[in-house]
């Protein structure tokens, strides 16, 4: 007998009974017999025959193809060790960063990426001991190192909310604050603006999305907050014109 005990977007905790019967258990759930339970704190998502829970917290679980922001933490003979906030170490081999053949004896890897550099990479593969292989080839900005700006970290499961449908949320923030923003799937976000106040405002908006991602009407509230603060900036003479929302944005 098929039965669902929750509604879409319900806030559940580990052990909450979600459904009974021949449902498929998606992310954030587990099955005991024919009963489906939540394994995390999150929002229920019902889709056809699949019941899943989108976690409101949790570690970054990398998937091949993900684009991530990372930090170089060590330089070895022919590879770099990169921190991407995952439970496993990530590595970037020199041949995955540079076109053509590289003579490691003659190349100082630190001249390409040095310790502390922020890079923009793609998850290429997992190896057999759960280490992550990255690649910066073909990435925007040559994969880095990214210069200037600031790094802010949000919960990885909230990245889709920060990006928004078709990029609506993130583009609204970018355009209103006039900043460049790169959102990594790992929840690491690089923000770079012409003025410090605008950079800070963008970060504030990003953190607001992170904090309120489980609520309704978030896009409107973020837009309101941004427009209000920009008007304040204009009055204080920090900026000359408050950037305008283009049509169709913030929807």
């Amino acid at each position, binding site marked *: 007998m098929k039965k669902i005990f929750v509604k879409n977007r319900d*806030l559940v*905790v*580990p*052990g*909450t*009974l979600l459904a009974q019967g021949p449902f498929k258990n998606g992310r*954030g759930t*587990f099955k*005991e017999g024919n009963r489906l*339970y939540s*394994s*995390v*704190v999150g929002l229920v998502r019902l889709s056809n025959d699949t019941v899943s829970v989108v*976690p*409101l*917290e*949790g*570690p970054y*679980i990398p998937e091949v193809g993900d684009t991530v922001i990372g930090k170089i933490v060590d330089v070895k003979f022919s590879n770099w060790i990169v921190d991407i906030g995952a*439970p*496993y*170490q990530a590595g970037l081999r020199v041949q995955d960063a540079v076109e053509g053949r590289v003579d490691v004896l003659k190349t100082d890897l630190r001249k390409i990426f040095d310790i502390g550099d922020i890079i923009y990479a793609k998850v290429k593969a997992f190896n057999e*001991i*759960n280490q992550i292989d990255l690649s910066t080839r073909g990435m925007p900005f040559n994969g880095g190192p990214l210069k200037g700006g600031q790094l802010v970290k949000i*919960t990885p*499961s909230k990245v889709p909310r920060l990006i928004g449908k078709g990029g609506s949320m993130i583009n609204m923030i970018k355009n209103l604050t006039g900043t460049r923003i790169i959102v990594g799937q790992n929840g690491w976000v690089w923000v770079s603006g012409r003025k410090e106040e605008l950079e800070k405002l963008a970060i504030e908006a990003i953190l607001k999305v992170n*904090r*309120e991602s*489980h*609520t*309704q*009407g978030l896009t409107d*509230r973020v837009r309101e907050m941004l427009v209000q603060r920009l008007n304040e900036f204009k009055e204080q003479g920090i900026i000359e014109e408050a950037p305008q929302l283009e049509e169709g944005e913030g929807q």
Partner: protein
Amino acid sequence: MMGKPEGLKLIDENGYRLDGRKKYELRKIKMEVGVLKSADGSAYVEWGKNKIMAAIYGPREIHPKHLQKPDRAILRVRYNMAPFSVEERKKPGPDRRSVEISKVIRGALEPAVILELFPRTSIDIFIEVLQADAGTRVAGITAASLALADAGIPMKDLVAACAAGKIDGEIVLDLNKEEDNYGEADVPVAIMPIKNNITLLQMDGYLTREEFLEAAKLAIKGAKAVYQKQREALREKYLKIVEEVGE
């Protein structure tokens, strides 16, 4: 168990205990989730006069590497009492009691965590007793459970814990410090309530078979009440924000 002062009654003729509670009454419990910024997950529990902070770091890589398990994560638990947490200052650092408690707490939480999702990593659980008044291990398990959920670590169920004991010949719920010191037995229990799986069970004292089973059953009832509070506390962290933004 210490020697009881002459004439001290832990329960009076009307069934009231020294702190005014009745036999099956829990002490007042407050729980808050997500209280520390640096940790991946955290929770703070006040249970009677106990003040317990729990934090999770992980899943993260283990050093030294030989501690890794190739197919699952490992749990590491450190239960520690702050020097100022007890009447007579306690020397900092793990003593034998803390080592044993850390081990049984690990045994209590392990069955609930879906360890196979994070091979070769460690999930580190820290339980700090900031103020102690008996029942620190069950309060610690309760807080650690919340912290694990707060860290987004997938679990099959929350682990809820509570203790029962025997004082003045009667089986009662949730002993405080005097009752634990002068009573006849202490029975801490932890369960995963969905399937009634008991993951912690100890008895310190001297009981008949019937008394032991009665105390275990009572502690389980107490744990189930604690479980409801845990679920509330986890939701509260987010419902609080919903209210703030006036949804």
